[in-house]
């Protein structure tokens, strides 16, 4: 990068009246700008355009890597890090919908909750949410054929319904509980769940791996036990997942049963149920 990198600190002045669209406000986009210029960047607030500086107190300091640090309640701010390619965004509170949706690279860390469609259609990079996420996290936008297709999603709280619907690559962790249709229509990728899940987990999943580290769900009729010797692959996978910590720490010490499904569709997906 030719321009010197910078960290922008953006402190929310007051909760906006309407929803705000943060698409385009990325570390790389602001990186080349000065403090005042960054304050003039136009964003959508409801049906009107607004300057970024009207909503945030902005401070810039030089740094080695481009980053944005948001302070305040961003629960009315949607599309944080939308299609972001690189850099780092940290939010010290909650954010709105589509957080890190279509993310391609870089790191996004949210200290509070995230709304619906977090990390949906994410292709690379990492989203870490310390709180919970709404429905359709790691899933597809309405109409799209593919959900998350790369990168890592870590949710330390709970996930809503349809978590990872149509996901096709990447790794996702939910430390808490997940809602109904957990990993429905999964095409590929690995998902580890620390708590329990709602109805119809793995519904119509074609391939991919679900690891249920918490409460063992009832196995539907369209999943069958395979009886394979899994010792080698499980040693590798469990060790890898254990690095996420929390409910996954003890995985390498547990033995595991494997089920294949959903045989109502392709049936090449797997459930790994540690004992």
């Amino acid at each position: 990068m030719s321009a010197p990198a910078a960290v922008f600190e953006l402190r929310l002045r007051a909760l906006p009246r309407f929803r705000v669209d943060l698409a385009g406000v990325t570390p790389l986009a602001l990186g080349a700008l000065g403090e005042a210029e960054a304050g003039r960047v136009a964003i959508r607030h409801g049906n009107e355009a607004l300057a970024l500086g009207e909503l945030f107190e902005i401070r810039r300091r030089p740094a080695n890597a481009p980053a944005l640090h948001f302070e305040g309640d961003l629960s009315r701010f949607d599309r944080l890090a939308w299609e972001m390619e690189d850099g780092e965004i940290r939010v010290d509170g909650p954010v709105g919908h589509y957080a890190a949706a279509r993310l391609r690279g870089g790191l996004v860390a949210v200290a509070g909750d995230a709304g619906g469609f977090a990390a949906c259609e994410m292709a690379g990079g990492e989203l870490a949410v310390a709180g919970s996420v709404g429905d359709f996290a790691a899933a597809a936008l309405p109409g799209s054929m593919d959900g998350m297709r790369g990168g890592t999603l870590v949710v330390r709280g709970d996930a809503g319904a349809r978590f990872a619907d149509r996901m096709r690559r990447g790794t996702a962790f939910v430390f808490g509980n997940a809602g109904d249709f957990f990993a429905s229509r999964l095409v590929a990728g690995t998902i580890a769940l620390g708590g329990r899940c709602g109805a119809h987990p793995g519904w119509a999943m074609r391939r991919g791996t679900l690891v249920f580290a918490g409460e063992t769900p009832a196995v539907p009729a369209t999943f069958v036990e395979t009886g394979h010797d899994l010792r080698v692959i499980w040693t590798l996978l469990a060790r890898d997942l254990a690095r996420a910590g929390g409910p996954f720490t003890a995985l390498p010490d547990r033995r595991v049963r494997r089920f294949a499904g959903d045989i109502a569709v392709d049936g090449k997906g797997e459930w790994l149920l540690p004992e």
Partner: protein
Amino acid sequence: MSTLRLRGGRLYDPAHGIDGEVCDLGVRDGRIVALHENEPVDREHDVSGMIVMAGGIDLHSHIGGGKVNLARLLLPEDHRPAPRTDNPLELASCGACTPGTLATGYRYAEMGYTAAFEPAMALSNARHAHMEMGDTPILDHGAYVMLGNDELLLEMLAEGGDPALVRDYVGWAINAARAMGVKVVNPGGISAFKFNQRKLDVDEPHVQHRVTPRQVVHALARALTELAVPHPLHIHASNLGVAGNIASTLATIDALEGLRGHLTHVQFHSYGTEGPHKFSSAALALVEAVNAHPNVSIDVGQIIFGQTVTASGDTMTQIRNAALGSPRKWVGADIECDAGCGLVPFRYRDQSYVNALQWVIGLEIFLLANDPWRVVLTTDHPNGGPFTSYPHLIRLLMDKSFRDEQLARLHPEVAAHAALREIRRELTLYEIAIMTRAAPARLLGLADRGHLGVGAAADIAVYREDADREYMFRTPEYVFKDGELVARQGRIVATPVGGTHFVEPGFDGAIEQRIARYAEHHHALDFRNAAIGRDELCTCANGGQLLVTPCAVHGTNGT
């Protein structure tokens, strides 16, 4: 009373043989009138050097009804790049190949079109179609009711097809649905599909009813002739999209036995089986047949490269096409066993041999046909491409060098061998005015639309002369609807409610007993609710004008 004068424009009004004459145009209370040169007017626009035509009329565009709405539901991603207009008159509406009702009205009007007709209204879903079109601002609209795959008609034909019975049934259906005409889609084929037939040639019997598409086409064309419905039978012929289907198309023309018929989206029905890919242009054969049959008119259904969605009543075809969908998803439906639909998203690619040839075939038909009064400009929106591509299509037809540039980019085998390369013809403004206004108005029987004569509705488009015909037709300087300025330089300035066109052919009411008996046994919808009353139509149509076209233009009234 309000008056308007357009001063000094060049008029293209083929209905009166006016070909670029410089002439003032007067309007009083929404109608074209003769104003004395010195008569004071409320508003006057200097349009000297500009081109003045009647408002465009699209006689085949899928703008209302169940399948249009299903297409929107199937492709939410088409609505993501919402154009953020700064025009406070435009309410939020978006979509490119599946535009919302509001966007449909805005986009048509801003390119100078003032009427559009939904070609495939299901009888049992007519209310929905009218409501959706009623929600479409500015445009006048109407629809053709689909018949020819409904069990009752096939039953009647199986019993011998008493022409009086068929006529009265068709007359009842047109009135009940408040239709402007009748469309037959894959005659008998959609029904045959439900009896496990996967294709139905023109002389192949339906396995259940033992009725052929030839009989269906002829019976409906005869009924419409006897009912004196101005718009001829709107025919979506058998074997849409299939290589070699030119044989079915010619057989369908033959089935008319001289009765009037309008072959729609003929591009999709003009395929041969020659060449290394067993897929070739049969445009010449089609055009020769059309030229030789003055009872036949066509619209083209030109394809335009890019993303669209095919929306058709032809379930049989759409199930075959589902595997070619891009993105790969689709919806099919059937209502009351009288009609259905299939929606398959599709991306036409210029590097695909088949798509490139389809593009060529459409243009060949436009350019080879010798009577523009029987050729209407359409893309079969959204099947061949969205209606917003009309300005581009017009430039392709009017500008040989532009056409050659586009042709050179296509799949190399098509670019190298297409007969289109040798066609020098460039359509004139006069011919474009015929194909986009005058001819569709005449084919629909609209006496006071599609022309600029005294007494006509003041639906007027004024274009600033530009060598780039695409730019010129995309952004008219002024568009008037019933004398009201609705668009200025491509920007909507008023959004009046459009009117509903329909016909009311007479028929013998005794037929209702039979229809009621059938409905009682087979339909979910109560027969007593089948017909849309005038007051109800008015509500459906958002309070717009009810525009009845009389049914005695071409023959005697059916009653």
